[in-house]
């Protein structure tokens, strides 16, 4: 372990720098102390986590950050960090009282979450430390594009208890990325003391075994030690390209937030001694003791800060409130609109290709089309292997290991670093295999949910341009974790497009559209159809399918089956069988679940009157429930009978083939249900 050079000290640091620091610290503390008043006066700032006691390290982190070059992710206690990065007092207050001009979110996100996306000060969620993965992701881009910059993830020490933080640090270590993990250790996670979080009081030392990671400890209450630590961390990250963790020992002088009362769990003695170690008064004493400033000079700076705060307060109060009628804005960004195939239909003739070939060739074509396209996932790239089902076979060979690479077995890492890398530049498009099988995706749900509201939460300033591919569904004898469908759960979360093709051409067209669109797309692949000849089709080379456009795969007059994925083929088989008995059955392949093509559904329902909704996922709370509700609300009077739903039972999918046959829908079950509906 090399020592940290003393670049900054009370005796040698130029006076104008000391003055700037004192100004920032005094102004910051004045806002920190004023913030609770806004709540008392019912103006806002209902969430405020005071930073007092973290002054040294927060000042240092901000001073280390170079705007528009570095990338920084602040946590909810980082008010002084934000000021030190360059934000103004007015901008801080605009966030605190949730004004329309709040730079973080225009009042959509919780107060005390400071961001200025134009400067690469990113908008983060409240989920403690989950931006660690984003910092690692953006650092991957910094390294790939060869920029002399660092990513800084700022967080409390309790966040190191989170599994995804481990995943992030492991990734930075493995990939040798220029990330600074700045850990502010005040000894508490709300009321939970450090001893209840981990065995190691110096929590950064839990990571001493990580290769390529340098760990620096500092006194986060001391300005000079903090400055030296952060300066050295940045120098090291820039010069070596390797990650650094800085653990700064702080004190929390007040409660966790304005909804916490620390007197309920901290002794009077403890509350006293943390106040005694006030970093601001310590810094002031040092400035006077070593005769760098006179008392009068410091009072002048203090008065300037007071005046500045007063002005900022006045301006912020005058700022407009958010317009609540905009609540539907920024759920999803505008997607790519196919010009040649506006309805996602074609009349191409020729050789049929399998669904797996369609995906593979489209991936390759899009990688050629956009050089800023990347893909990673588990089992993604090792010699001839390309994903667990070989969908991405040959990609690494053609596009190299910097654009096509394996990820650790860490689903949250796969998604979180995609979110992070896409923050680097709007031009980047990322495809990830979110998990080996869809049922393994659950560990990634926190990043999935977080990514789903990035666009809304940032007031339209950032959207992760990521396509998540998941091999979904059963019919392979895979059992639990290899055969489930999860779209029923996912469709309840706004902010993500969800598509589920049934045929090779639609798979190619939807994938191309997803990869050319802004925003997050969940691309679900019916893995049982990868190599099934019945899903093979002719595919135009440039085929595109717009989101939210269903496809009528078979016309009919007596009954309409609304379906997607594996069951599209079963519905077509059942329809064919029924046609021989004189029934005319229409089959609508939804292709997109979100957005949903209500128009095609309702037109068919109104024309035909009898409806079945068929999907492989569970009937209970499955997506069919939503489709049913839409029909009931918007076309009830056109129905000639109750809507019939067919899907899997409200159970897991069993391993033995007999369980699978019992649990999952099949052509026979659909046929029997259709007979009932037709007879009604």
């Amino acid at each position: 372990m090399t020592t940290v050079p003393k670049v900054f000290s009370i005796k040698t640091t130029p006076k104008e720098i000391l003055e700037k620091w004192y100004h920032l610290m005094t102004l910051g503390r004045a806002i920190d102390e004023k913030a609770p008043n806004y709540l008392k006066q019912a103006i806002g700032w209902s969430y405020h986590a005071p930073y007092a006691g973290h002054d040294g390290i927060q000042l240092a982190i901000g001073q280390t950050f170079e705007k528009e070059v570095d990338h920084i992710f602040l946590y909810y206690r980082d008010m002084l960090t934000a000021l030190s990065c360059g934000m103004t007092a007015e901008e801080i207050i605009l966030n605190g009282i949730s004004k329309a001009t709040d730079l973080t979110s225009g009042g959509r996100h919780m107060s005390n979450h400071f961001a200025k996306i134009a400067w690469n000060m990113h908008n983060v969620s409240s989920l403690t430390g989950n931006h660690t993965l984003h910092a690692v992701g953006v650092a991957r881009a910094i390294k790939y594009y060869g920029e002399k910059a660092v990513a800084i993830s700022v967080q409390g020490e309790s966040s190191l208890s989170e599994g995804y933080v481990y995943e992030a640090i492991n990734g930075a270590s493995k990939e040798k990325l220029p990330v600074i993990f700045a850990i502010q250790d005040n000894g508490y996670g709300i009321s939970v003391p450090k001893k209840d979080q981990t065995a190691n009081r110096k929590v950064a030392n839990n990571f001493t075994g990580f290769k390529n990671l340098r760990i620096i400890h500092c006194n986060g209450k001391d300005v000079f030690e903090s400055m030296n630590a952060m300066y050295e961390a940045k120098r090291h990250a820039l010069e070596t390209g390797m990650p650094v963790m800085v653990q700064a020992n702080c004190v929390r002088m007040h409660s966790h937030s304005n909804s916490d009362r620390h007197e309920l769990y901290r002794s009077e003695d403890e509350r006293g001694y943390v106040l005694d170690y006030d970093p601001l008064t310590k810094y002031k004493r040092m400035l006077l003791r070593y005769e760098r400033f006179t008392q009068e000079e410091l009072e002048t700076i203090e008065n300037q800060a007071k005046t500045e705060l007063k002005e900022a307060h006045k301006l912020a109060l005058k700022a407009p409130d958010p317009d609540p009628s905009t609540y539907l804005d920024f759920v999803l960004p505008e997607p790519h609109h196919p010009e040649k195939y506006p309805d996602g239909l074609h009349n191409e003739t020729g050789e049929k290709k399998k669904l797996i070939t369609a995906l593979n060739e489209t991936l390759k074509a899009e990688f050629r089309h956009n050089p800023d396209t990347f893909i990673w996932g588990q089992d993604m790239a090792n010699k001839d292997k390309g994903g667990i089902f070989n969908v991405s076979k040959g990609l690494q060979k053609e596009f190299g290991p910097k654009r096509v690479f394996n990820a650790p077995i860490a689903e949250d890492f796969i998604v979180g670093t995609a979110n992070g890398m896409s923050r680097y530049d709007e031009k980047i498009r990322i495809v990830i295999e979110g998990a080996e099988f869809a049922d393994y995706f659950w560990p990634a749900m926190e990043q999935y949910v977080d990514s789903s509201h990035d666009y809304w939460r940032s007031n339209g300033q950032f959207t992760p341009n990521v396509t998540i591919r998941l091999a979904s569904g059963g019919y392979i004898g895979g059992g639990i974790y290899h055969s489930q469908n999860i779209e029923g759960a996912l469709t309840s979360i706004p902010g993500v497009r969800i598509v589920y093709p049934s045929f090779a051409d639609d798979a190619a067209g939807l994938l191309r559209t997803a990869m050319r669109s802004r925003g997050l797309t969940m691309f679900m692949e019916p893995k049982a159809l990868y190599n099934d000849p019945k899903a093979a089709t002719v595919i135009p080379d440039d085929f595109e399918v717009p989101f939210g456009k269903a496809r009528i795969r078979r016309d009919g007059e007596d009954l309409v089956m609304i379906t997607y994925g594996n069951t599209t083929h079963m519905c077509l088989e059942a329809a064919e069988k029924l046609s021989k008995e004189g029934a005319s059955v229409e089959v609508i392949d939804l292709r997109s679940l979100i957005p949903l093509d209500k128009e095609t559904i309702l037109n068919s329902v109104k024309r035909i009157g009898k409806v079945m909704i068929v999907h492989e996922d569970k009937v209970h709370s499955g997506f069919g429930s939503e489709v049913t509700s839409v029909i009931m609300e918007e076309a009830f009077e056109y129905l000639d009978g109750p809507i019939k739903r067919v899907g899997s039972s409200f159970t897991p999918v069993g391993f033995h083939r007999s369980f699978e046959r019992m649990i999952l829908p099949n052509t026979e079950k659909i046929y029997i249900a259709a007979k009932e509906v037709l007879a009604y």
Partner: protein
Amino acid sequence: MNKTGIFYSFSSTKTAKAAEKICEEFEPEFKIQKVNAEELTEELFLSFTNLILGVPTWFDGELPIYWDEFVPAIEDLDLKGKTIAIYGLGNQVEYPENFGDAVGIMAELVKERGAKLVGLTSTEGYTYESSRAEIGDKFMGLVLDQETQPRLSKERISNWVKDLKAQFS
């Protein structure tokens, strides 16, 4: 000259009590001048030949704030000819990873500036994981644990002062 002083925070509790006990052990052969470490100046510090520094460990291995603020001053001092002994309180059960660290931090600081460090004590009888005060099988001073070994402090102080008397005379 040849003055002996004990430097500690007058507003502290346990460190101040230990200072009282140390002074009692020195008397009557030695007259020890008590100095408030919170009001220290370079001139005052340099006016002593033998110095006993009361340096408890704060938080996860830090100097107390009053010593920390004096470090930039010490860094520029020439301490050749000074004999310095350090004592400090720590807690080996709750803070085993940095037991008595502040004693070690201060010891290194004054040694690097030419002071003769005396009053090293055996680490025997303590159970901890790591300490910056440790050098071989010794502490670079006297580490007292009033939280978990209060009954051992009296004897530890007594033995320590016996050693210091020989070093200071």
